[in-house]
C-alpha cells in the first residue's frame, strides 16, 4: 500500500449481497479492494421484507421469467429461498477470502433493502453493490437508486466483473468534491489503466487550470491521461462517448454544483461500466 493509497483511509468495505451475478461481481471486486487496502470486509445480505410479506397473500402468483408459467408463493418456501441464497453468498465469501488472510464478516438482516443498506453503510468507508440485482436490467434498480441518492459514503456500482487495469474515466469539475474524486480514483486505478479525464469547465482557461490541478493531484497516474473539456454534463452525449471509447470504471461526484443526482441516474441508465460515486 502506497502513501497515496493509505491517505484514502479505507478501513471497512461493505458489500451488499443478494446472490445475483451482479452482486457476486461486487463481492469479487470488494475482496480485491479489501486485500489491497488491508481493510475489513463486511458482507450484508438483506432478506427483503416485501418478498416475505407478499408470500403471505393467498392470491399472488410468481410468474416465471423464462417459462412465463405462474407459481404459487408461500412464506416458508420464500424463507427457504432466501436462506439458501444467503448461504450461497456466505460460502462464496468464505471461498474468496480463504487464502488472503482478510478480516471479514457476514450478516443477514431483514427489512426493506434500501433502508437496511443505508443504515449499514454508516459503519463502512466504501460500499459496493450490483446495479440492478435480480432483474439484470441495464437500468439502475430501485435499491441502487436509493443508495445513489442516500448513501452516506462513496458507492461503487457494478454491472459486471471488473479487472485491474480497465480504462478509467474521471469527471472533474474543480469543486471541493472534485479533489475527492481525484483521490478516490486511486481506488480503481492500477498499473496500466488508461485514464481519461473529462473537465467540466466554463472556459478554456479554466479547463487548462483544471488540467494542471488533475495532473498535480494524480501525478504518475495522469502521465498519459487524455483530457477533454466540456462546458456541462450532457448525459446522453457522455454515454455515447463512453460506449464508443470503452470504459471500465467511471469516477464522478455523487452530487455537486454541476452534477445532480438526476443526471447521474440518467447517465448510469445508459452505460454498462462500473461507476464510483464519490462524496
Amino acid at each position, binding site marked *: 500500500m502506497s502513501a497515496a493509497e493509505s491517505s484514502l483511509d479505507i478501513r471497512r468495505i461493505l458489500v451488499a449481497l443478494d446472490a445475483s451475478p451482479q452482486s457476486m461481481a461486487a463481492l469479487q471486486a470488494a475482496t480485491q479492494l479489501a486485500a489491497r487496502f488491508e481493510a475489513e470486509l463486511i458482507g450484508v445480505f438483506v432478506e427483503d421484507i416485501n418478498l416475505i410479506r407478499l408470500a403471505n397473500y393467498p392470491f*399472488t402468483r*410468481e410468474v416465471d*421469467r423464462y417459462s412465463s408459467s405462474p*407459481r404459487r408463493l408461500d412464506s416458508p418456501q420464500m424463507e427457504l*429461498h432466501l436462506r439458501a*441464497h444467503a448461504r450461497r453468498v456466505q460460502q462464496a465469501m468464505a471461498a474468496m477470502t480463504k487464502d488472503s488472510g482478510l478480516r471479514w464478516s457476514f450478516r443477514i438482516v431483514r427489512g426493506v433493502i434500501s433502508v437496511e443498506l443505508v443504515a449499514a453503510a454508516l459503519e463502512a468507508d466504501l460500499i459496493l453493490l450490483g446495479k440492478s440485482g435480480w432483474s439484470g436490467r441495464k437500468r439502475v434498480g430501485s435499491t441502487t437508486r436509493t443508495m445513489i441518492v442516500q448513501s452516506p459514503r462513496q458507492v461503487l456500482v457494478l454491472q459486471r466483473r471488473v479487472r485491474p487495469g480497465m480504462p478509467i474515466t474521471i469527471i472533474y469539475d474543480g469543486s471541493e468534491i472534485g479533489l475527492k474524486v481525484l483521490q478516490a480514483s486511486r481506488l480503481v486505478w492500477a498499473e496500466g489503466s488508461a485514464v481519461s479525464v473529462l473537465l467540466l469547465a466554463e472556459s478554456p482557461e479554466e479547463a487548462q487550470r483544471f488540467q494542471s490541478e488533475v495532473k498535480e493531484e494524480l501525478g504518475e497516474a495522469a502521465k498519459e491521461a487524455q483530457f477533454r473539456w466540456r462546458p456541462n454534463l450532457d448525459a446522453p452525449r457522455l454515454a455515447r462517448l463512453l460506449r464508443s471509447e470503452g470504459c471500465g470504471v467511471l469516477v464522478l461526484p455523487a452530487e455537486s454544483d454541476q452534477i445532480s443526482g438526476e443526471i447521474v441516474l440518467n447517465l448510469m441508465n445508459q452505460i454498462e461500466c462500473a461507476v464510483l460515486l464519490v462524496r
Partner: protein
Amino acid sequence: MGSFEPLAPRQLYHPVDPTDFQFETTENLPDFFEIIGQPRAVEAVRFGMGIEKEGYNIFAHGPTGTGKRSLVRQFFEKKASQEPVPDDWCYVHNFEHDYRPNAIRLPAGRGAIFKRDMEQLVEELRTTISSAFESDEYRARRQVAEEEVNQRQEKALEEMQEQASQHNLTLIRTPGGLVFAPVRDGEVMQPEEFQNLSQEERETLEKTVGELQEQLQKVLQLVPVWQREVRQRVRELNREITNYAVSGLMAELRQKYSEFDEITAYLDAVQKDVVENSSNFIPQEEPSADGAGGPLAALMSRARPEQQPTRRYQVNLLVDHQGKQGAPVIYEDNPTYQNLIGRVEHMAQMGALVTDFTLIKPGALHLANGGYLILDVRKVLQQPYTWEALKRALLSRQITIESIGQMLSLITTISLEPEPIPLDIKLALIGDRWLYYLLSQLEPDFHELFKVQADFDEIMSRTDDNQDSYARVIATITRQEQLRPFDRSAVARVIEHSSRMVGDAEKLSIQISNITDLLQEADYWAGQNGNGAVDSSDVQKAIDAQIYRSDRLRERFQESILRETVRINTQGSAVGQVNGLSVIQLGDFSFGIPSRISARVRLGKGEVINIEREVDMSGPIHSKGVLILSGFLGARYAADENLSLSASLVFEQSYSGVDGDSASSTELYALLSAISKIPIRQSLAVTGSVDQHGNVQAIGGVNEKIEGFFDICKARGLTGEQGVLIPESNVKNLMLRRDVVEAVAEGKFQVFPVANIDQGIEILTGIPAGEPDEEGKYPADTVNGRVQERLAELAKKREELDKKPKDEEKEGKQEEEGES
C-alpha cells in the same frame, strides 16, 4: 591310345592379351554411355517409351544385376527432360458434400500460388470482416436491433407496472420471476392491513391481480418470439455486412483465376460460405491459460489448428511442380498400397478419428502423373492389394484414393471420397523373368496393360569389339564407384573372369552387378597392397578371396576324399569302376567333385538297374540317361539276340540325390568294362552325356569338374598319367584355372576331348574299341569284341537255363514229395 591327343594348354584357357588393348589404364578410356550387350532390351524400352498409346507400359525382366532399372531410368529421364512439366493438382473443400473434396488442376507452379492466395484471402477476410463488425456503423445497427427486444420487454413491463399502480399494486421482481402485490406507501402492504380492507376492495384487488398476472404471462410469452426476430435480423445484418466486406476481395481473386472455371466456381462457393459463417472470422475470447475453462475447453479451443473453422478454405496442394524441369520420373522404393495410390490420414480429436481434405496425401501415382513411374514388380506383388489397385488405376486411367480399411469395411470412422484424378502415366515394372511369365499366364489383364516386354540378357558374345566395349564399361564403373584405375592387365583378367563366370570362353557375363563387385574388391586389395592402379594380381586376389570365402564345403569334400573316407582312386586300374564328375552349386559358387561310379553284371533278362532310382534318389534326367544306355547296348551288341544280362549301376558313397545326364557316358564305360572284364584306368575321370548311338554330348560346368578332379590329383601328387575326358563340344567352354593350365603345359595332367564312346573307352582301357565287320562282328582283341563275346556267352547260357527249368521243376517236385 596314341591316336588320341590331349588338348594343348592354349585350348584350355582363352586368355585376353593385354597388349591388344590400346590403353594403359582405364583412366585413358572414355565413358561408355550405352547399355552393353542388351540390344533387344534397349530397342524394347525405346519403343515402349515412344509409343503413346494406352497399355504400352513396359515390363523389363531379366536376371538381377543386368542393369534393368538403371537402363529404364536413364531412358525415362532423358525423354522426360524434354517433355513439359505436368499440371499441379490441389484438393479443396467441397461445400456441398463435405466428404467429397474436389480436385482442381492448375498449370505447373500455379498451385502454390493459388494456395498462397487462399491463405492470404483468409488472413485478409479475418481483418476485413472483423473490422467491418467492429465498425461503429455495424455496432450501432446491431445494438439497435438487440436493444429493441429489451426495450419492448421493458416497455411492456413498465406498462404493466403502470397499470398495476393504478390499482394500488406493484410489480416486484423476485429471484425467480415477477409478482404483483398490493402496496401502500411504496411498501408491500402488510397482510393485516389487507385484511382490514373492505370485502369489496379485497375482491377487486384479488381480481385485478389475477387479470394482470394473465396479461404478464402473455407478455413474457412474446419475449422468445421477439428474441428470435432479433436474431434473424442480426443474422441478416451480418450477412449484409460480410457480403459487402468480402465481395471486393473475392472479385480480385476471381479476376485473377478467370480462365479456370473450376476455381471461379470454387470461389463462388467460398464467398457464399464465408457470408453464412462470418462469425468464424471474428476473434473469439479464449479460455485463459490458467485453465479457467478446464482441460475440456482447451481441447475444444478454436486456437488449435485442427479446430480452426477457416481450415476449410485452405488448399491442399497435392502435387506441386513449382520450379521443376521436365516431366517427373519416380521410382517408388516401397510400393505399399498407400504409397502408390495416396492416402487420407486421420487425426485424433477427443478420442475419435477425424479427417478432412487437408489430410489427403499423394501417392507415387500422383507424383508421377504426366511422367514416368518405375516399380519393382516383386515388391508390388508382396504388398497386399497393391497389384489390384495399380491395375485398377491403369485400366480406369484415374487415381481414386480409397483406404484399405474402408475397402474391406474394417474401419467405420469418418472418411473421405476424394474426387478421382485423371491418370496419364508411362509405367515400367522391373522384375524377374519368372514373374513376367507367371503373370502373363495367370493374369488376364496383363497383356492389356504391359504390351512391351524388355527382355534383358545375361551374356553376350566375346568378340574383339565387345571386349573393347567391356573395357570401357569397366572404366565407367571405376569412375562411378570412385575406384582406382585398372591397368590393362587387370582389365584383361576381369574380362577372362567374366567368361569364366558364364562358363564359356566365347561369351561374356553382362550381370554388371557381379562385375562391379569384383572391381570394388580388386580395388580394395589394391589398396591393401598399396598399389596406385589395380593390376591383374589384385583382380586375381579378389577372385581367390571370393572363392576362399565360399569354399568351406569344397574343402570338406576334398578332405574326405584325401582321407579316404570317400574312396576315389587316382591311380591303378579296376574293372567296372570309373571316376565320374559332378558339380555342386552353393549360391553363387559352384565346384566339381569326383565320384566313383561302378557297374556289376550277371546273367539276366536285359535290364539295367539304376540303383539310385530304386531308392528314389535319381532325378528324371539321370534316369533317362540310364535308359538310353540299355538302348545303346542292345542295339549295338545284341541286335539279333536277347540281351541276356542284368546290370546294376550306382554312384558309390552318394548319400543324396543325383540328377543330370552328364554321368551317362561314365556309366556306359563302367558297364562296358564290367561286361568285357577289361580294367579301366583310375587315373582318369570322365564327364559327358551319351546318346543311343554312342555319341558323347556336351554337359555343363566343365571347368569346375576338371578342376575338381585336378585338385584331388594335385593333393595326392600329379603322376602325369592323370587327366579328364570331356565331350569335344565342351572345348569352347574351357576357361580353366591357371594351375591346371600350367600342369597340362608341364605334361603332368591331361584333358582329352572325346566325340564318341569308342574314343573314350580306348583312352580309358588302352585297348582299341574296334570297328564292326560287315556282319556286325567286332574283332576279338578289341573292347567291343570282348563285350560282344561276353554278351553272346551270356545269351547262350540263358538259352540253356531256359531249357533246364522244366527238368529242375520235376526234380524239385520229387524232392518235395520225398521230404513229405
